[in-house]
Structure formats: C-alpha cells, structure tokens
C-alpha cells in the first residue's frame, strides 16, 4: 500500500509509475474532454483512479497519494511520455476539485470516483438569460422541501448539458438578503424530468451550448456545497479553479502558437501577400500576441511553482479574445475577396469566417 509515498524517492516513484504503465497502458485513446467519453476511455480512467495515479496530490482517503507537486509532476511526465490520459486530474478536473473542497463526505463517496473515471459527466449551470456576467443577479430559485430542494428557473450558455449527469448550479435560496448573499451552490442531477435541455443555435450555425429549463427539478440537500446561502464563496472558488485549469491548458500555448504561426505564414504565402509590407506588419503583430501569450503562461506557471502569485493567469481570457479577434481580422485581410466565400469547398475562408464569429465566445 502506498499511503506514505512522500517518503518514496523520486527515482522509485518514476520506476513504479513506469512499470505500471508498461503493464497496463496498451491502446491509444482520444484525450478526454469535459463532456464526451467512450467506454474504452472510461475503463482506462477507472484503472488509473484505482491505481491512485489520477490525483496524486490528493489525500489517500480520496484516491490520492498525498504527493508533493514535484513528485506528482513526475507521474504526469511519465503519463505524457506514453500519451496516456488520466493523470494530474487534481490540476485539471475543476469539477472534482470543487467537490473535494466543498462536498460532504457522503457526496464525495458518491461522486468523486465516477467523476475522475469519466463515468459521471458534469456541466456548469451559472449564466442566466439577460443577467450576462452578473452572476450575483441569479434568479433561478431553490426552495427547501423535506430532504430536497425544488428548483425552478432557467440557465443559458451551458456546454454539454445534454449529456451531463450533474450540473454545478447556483440558485437563489434567500430573496431577502442582498444580491450576492442568499445564493446556494448545488450538484444537481441532470437526468430527471424537471430538467429540460434545449440546444442553442449559435451565430456560427452550430450548437455547442444549451438553454436549460428547471420545472420543479429536485436536488437532495446533501448535494449542497458549502453552507446554505453561502454559495457565492463556493462559486468564487470554483471559478478560480476553472481559471487555473485554463492556465494549465495554456501550458500547451507555446506549441499552439508555433502551429498557428506556421499556418498564418502559410496562408500569407498562398495568398501571395507575404511580400506586402502592410500585411507583414499585421502578421508580426498577430503572431506576437500568440507568442507573448505563451511566454506569459510559462511565466505564470513558474510563478505558481515558486508560490509567487501572478496577475497574468487572470488575463488569459482577455489575451485569448484579442488573439482570436485579431487573427480573424488578419486572415480575412489576407484572403481579400476570397473571404466572401464559405464552406468546405473554401477551407481557408471557412476558417477565417468561423474564427470571426467564434472569437466572441471567448468573452462568455
């Protein structure tokens, strides 16, 4: 039993995980996304969780090993080396992190393993129509009724609500106290008749998002996270987890930025605009945004690891929004009249047009 892995030397740890992977990791699986899994993937993730590789920094009683960040990263390196998913979820699975932080032991027993193993999928039930980013203005209501709360109201811009098993819900449980008080935070079961999910048709003519309607939907009192009417604090923490996960994701930014750079330059070359001095200035500008974003993320990561807090992480959204809008504008300019066209037959235009509209979603 590995209850005291911190005593273990880095070499032994590396050896152990390597051996385990050699014995267990065979096939190649698609990387997990927040709201789609496959049986094969779930089976693998289950193995990872039970072998305690999923959340190494977490305590032993909750599928972890209580490892230091450094040692945990050794495990994650080895998983990355063979492209095996499932490790490091204590940094990436912000639903599970939220549950660990605020959930009752009962709830943790009920949900944690399933979440880490991808058997229980989740969605966010925060935004409401008209309220925009003003979550304190939430009007969806949850009223106590016996052991349950009864939920009525509407949410919007939820991703993966159609497939999710549970949603992280903020609802008003007290109408008398000031706005951001009187809010509570729940894990709401989505698969019940009181919950109706309608896909939203986006400007891009796709549907990644949904509207969710609650009509006397029920959630057990034990699925309340944090204290009653104290959900605002839970929400702030959950949002912070979400942001830092974005930060983790952004570690890949350097690679992305290189790919994007190659692709933009290729487009400029194809369009015969690479020698146009005006376009070259815009090219340099747009490419620099991505590159600098990667540098920011690297710095933020370093700061994080040395424990110094950094304001950069909170700027990820703003930076990404600028990158996407500027890149869309540039791609359009490079294509000129070609950007009038659209669809699979004109992939370059299709990319530019999609990006133009999709860039707005970074601000949701």
């Amino acid at each position, binding site marked *: 039993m590995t209850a005291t892995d911190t005593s273990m030397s880095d070499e032994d740890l590396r050896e152990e995980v390597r051996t385990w992977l050699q014995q267990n990791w065979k096939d190649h699986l698609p990387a997990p996304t927040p709201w789609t899994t496959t049986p094969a993937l779930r089976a693998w993730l289950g193995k990872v969780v039970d072998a305690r590789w999923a959340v190494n920094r977490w305590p032993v009683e909750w599928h972890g090993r209580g490892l230091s960040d450094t040692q945990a990263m050794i495990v994650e390196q080895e998983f990355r080396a063979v492209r095996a998913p499932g490790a490091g979820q204590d940094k990436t699975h912000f639903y599970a992190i939220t549950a660990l932080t605020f959930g009752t032991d009962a709830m943790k027993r009920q949900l944690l393993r399933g979440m880490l193993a991808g058997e229980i999928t989740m969605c966010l039930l925060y*935004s409401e*129509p*008209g*309220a*925009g*980013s*003003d979550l*304190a*203005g939430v009007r969806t209501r949850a009223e106590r009724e016996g052991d349950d709360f009864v939920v009525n109201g509407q949410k*919007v*811009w939820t991703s993966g609500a159609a497939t999710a098993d549970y949603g992280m819900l903020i609802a008003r449980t007290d109408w008398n106290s000031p*706005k951001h008080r009187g809010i509570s935070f729940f894990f709401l079961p989505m698969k019940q008749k009181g919950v109706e999910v309608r896909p*939203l*048709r*986006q*400007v891009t*003519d796709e549907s990644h998002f949904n509207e969710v309607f609650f009509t006397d939907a029920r959630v057990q009192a034990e699925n309340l996270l944090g204290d009653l009417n104290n959900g605002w604090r839970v929400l702030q923490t959950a949002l912070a987890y979400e942001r830092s996960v974005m930060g983790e994701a952004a570690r890949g930014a350097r690679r992305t930025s290189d790919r994007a750079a190659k692709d933009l330059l290729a487009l400029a070359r194809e369009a015969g605009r690479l020698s146009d001095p*005006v376009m070259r200035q815009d090219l340099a500008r747009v490419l620099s945004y991505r590159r600098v974003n990667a540098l920011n993320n690297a710095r933020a990561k370093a700061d994080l690891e040395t424990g110094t807090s950094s304001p950069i992480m909170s700027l990820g959204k703003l930076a990404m929004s600028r990158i996407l809008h500027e890149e869309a504008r540039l791609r*359009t*300019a490079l294509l*000129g*009249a*070609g*950007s*009038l*066209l*659209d*669809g699979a*037959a*004109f992939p370059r*235009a299709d990319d530019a*047009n999609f990006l*133009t*509209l999709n860039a*707005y*979603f970074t*601000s*949701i």
Partner: protein
Amino acid sequence: MTDAVRRLFADKHDESVVRANMEARSGFDPAFWSALAELGVTGLLVDAAHGGLGGGPLEVEAIMEEAGAALLGAPLLSSFMASALIEGSGDSDARTRLLPAIAQGRIVALALTGDVGTWTEDGVALIADREDALLSGHASFVLHGANAELLLAIARTVDGFGVFEVAPDTAGLNSMPLPTFDRTLRLARLTFDKVPAHRLDAAGWSTVARTLQLGLVALAGEQAGGARRVLEMTTQYAKVRYQFGRAIGSFQAIKHMAANLLLETESAISAARAAAAALASTANDADELVALAAFTCADAYDRAAADAIQMHGGIAFTWAHPAHLYLRRARADLQLFGTPAAHRERYLKALGA
C-alpha cells in the same frame, strides 16, 4: 421617392423577409422586387426616354441607405451599375434594348473581375477574340450571376477593354453559384468558352471606371445605412437592458463605445453623401471623395456591426439574433469592389501623393 421606399422597406422587408431570402435560391423576394420596380427604383438611373426616372448618384445613395438598413438581398446594386454602364456607353440601340428591361426590373449581372477579386483592370480574366465575337476565360464574385436575365461582361480586346452583352443561356457559358459567408449575398463564378457576345459601342475601361465609382457610392450608402441601423439596435438595447442593476447603457464603457460608434457612423453618412454629391456634380474632387467614402464607410460598418455583438453580449451570439446578419453583410461589403486598404491607396493618389 426615398420616403416611399423607406415606407416600403418598413412595411414589407422586416427581419423575417431577410431570413427567408437567406434560404431562397434567388436570395430575394420577387414580390418585393416588383414593388421596388413599380416605384421606379430599378430604373432610377435610366433616362426618362427609356422608361426610367433619370436620377443620379444622390438618389442612388439615399435609396441604398434604406436598402442597407434593411439588408436587401435583391440585385439593386447590379441594376444601378448596369444602367450606369450602358448609359455611359455610346451604344444607342443597346440603350433602347437593355435599359427599359432593367427599368422594368429584369435581373442583370456584371461580370467584371476574375478570381483575384480586385475589380481593377489587371483583375479582368475574360478575353475576346480578334473579331470581338467570342469571349473566353472566367469572371468571379458576380452578384446574382447564377440567375441573371441579362449579363454584361468586361473583357480584354485587341484594342483595350470592351463591354459585352451576353445572353445568359448561351452554350459555353457556365455559372456556378458560390457559397457565401453573408447568406443574404448571391455570388457566382462564370466560365466562358468561346461564348458569342455583342460588344457595345464606345465603352472602354473609363466607362467601367465611372461605373465602379457609382457602385462604390451605392455601396457606401448601403454601409452607412446598415451602420446606422445596427447602431440604433445597439443603443436601443443598451437603454433597456439591465445588468448589475443598471441599464447597461449607463456604463461608461458602453457610453464610450457608443460615442465612438456614433462618430464613425455619422462620419460614414457624411462621407457617403458627400461622395454622391461630388459624383453628381462631377466635381474635381470626386475621385478623392469616392475613395474616402469607400474605406470610411466600409470600416465604420464593420466596426459598428462587430461592436454591436460585443455590446449585446450573449444574446447576440445566437443565430436567432439579427446582429450577426449585419456583421456578415458588413464583412462582405468590406471586400466588394476593392478592399479598404486599396481605397486608402487610391485616396492618397487622388490627393496627388
């Protein structure tokens, strides 16, 4: 007449019509088109002798402000440009043959530029044989080129550029509809393989250039009108919509954005109308003012439509909301008849720099 047209758009061309046009193959509502014809709009530039109103750039610009605000899909722009092109030619029986048809509302298309889509001399990808009888090559980005009843084509000839009349159903002429990002737009790519054509008398590139000037003024009007409408939508929305307990219009960030948009939109209107006036009076600064209007209005519309989505927030990210329809049109107008960057160059040249 502008008032009558404005009323017509208000009564018969709301968002539902626009969305229907998006799905329609032709891209427009024939009934509305005939209504415009009855008001004389299609014959606005056609002289009275040929059944038109004998109007000029000023009237064109005013009408296009309304058309732009309403996201008209019908081939009005082509009718205006075709009339200008034919009126500009010295071919009297082409006049008698074609102008009345245009005035009556027949759908006319202009094959002017090739795949490069620059709408400049070197962009022309059609060539006539030595006898000026047969055209070969291609033309792209042809407005309503797939369902045109009349077709005019610009081609290289042994003696410079020529303007040709082509029967759309002639053998050797193939038209392929192009899928467009702006779904209210109808573009086609035409390929010519020894297509019989009739060359118009006394019409060369200078005639085409004047036609493009008129096209740019019309487009500027459309852009100014569209920008004004989308800004109205936004400010109206900002007034009524509440966030953080206040009308979002009362937030400085929004006010600031709105003030800048108002400046750009009003500037677009001023520029479009000034260009029309200059073209009407053939003032010596016509080239300068047309180029100025071209990039000023294009950028203003693009900005107004883009910011509208920002200021509406989430609701404008849905297909059901009209904001993206204006953004799509604004981005299309950014490319038609030349890019803002190209117009800025032309503006400087017109200033003698």
